[in-house]
């Protein structure tokens, strides 16, 4: 499948992946992240249930302390 990941095109052999699988595959190891699918928030506790498909717009945003 081809998706937009963090505003850039990205492709995967799989037809679909859950957020949890995507995070593992891309090796996003940050402690605190916010995930969105087509602009809608995907909460932490449902990342293993929500699937990403071809054409989706996905955001995995790393949050850092400071302010």
């Amino acid at each position, binding site marked *: 499948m081809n998706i937009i990941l963090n*505003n*850039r095109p990205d492709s995967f052999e799989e037809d679909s992946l859950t957020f949890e699988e995507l995070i593992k595959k891309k090796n996003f190891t940050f*402690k*605190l*992240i*916010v995930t*969105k699918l087509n*602009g*809608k*928030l995907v*909460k932490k506790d449902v990342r293993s249930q929500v699937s990403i498909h071809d054409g989706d717009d996905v*955001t995995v*945003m*790393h*949050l*850092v*302390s*400071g*302010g």
Partner: protein
Amino acid sequence: MKQEKTIFEPKFIFKTMNIKEIFKILKTKTIGIAGCGGLGSNCAAALTRLGIGKIILADFDKVDASNLSRQYYFYEQVGQKKVFALADNLSYISPYVEIKPYDLKLGPHEIITIFKDCDLIIEAFDLAEMKQMIIETCTESFPDKPLIVGNGMAGWGNNNSIKTSKIGENLYVCGDGVSEISEELPPLAPRVGIVANMQANTAISILLKNEKSTEL
């Protein structure tokens, strides 16, 4: 090298408006600021200079001498509650901006209660956990309210790593997205001020409806 595309990419199309027209619009607006540290205090100062009608401030902390490296407080205010010290400082800039200070620790319930009438919300917490909490709270409870988050502003230099991105309908993120504060990478006035003012600039571009001309 491939340039990362931000949706906020400037197209240098400015919607023009004179200062009277700008003030006329902004004085009808209410902005909530979650946290009165480096981001919140500097952002509030910029918004006060712009004549925003009402600013709602929330923080539970006191001014510490170490805060003076970047926050909009003065030496003699050390030990005072931040929300009240900041309300004083903003009133010296302009007595015409209504300031509503809340001395409390924000959780989902408080955010929903005190910011419900705001036109938009500025996230100005220090901890990443709190940033995540307000993003989740606002996305769920205020899907139509813009939320402007500061993310990554520690250290010095690297001007051009700081940018603004729009994620989904109503989430805007200002910062470099990577620099986390630590002993060796402290938050300092210039970069914190850049991000705080970027948040203020994003806020007014939303409020002045400039987003249509810049495809923000």
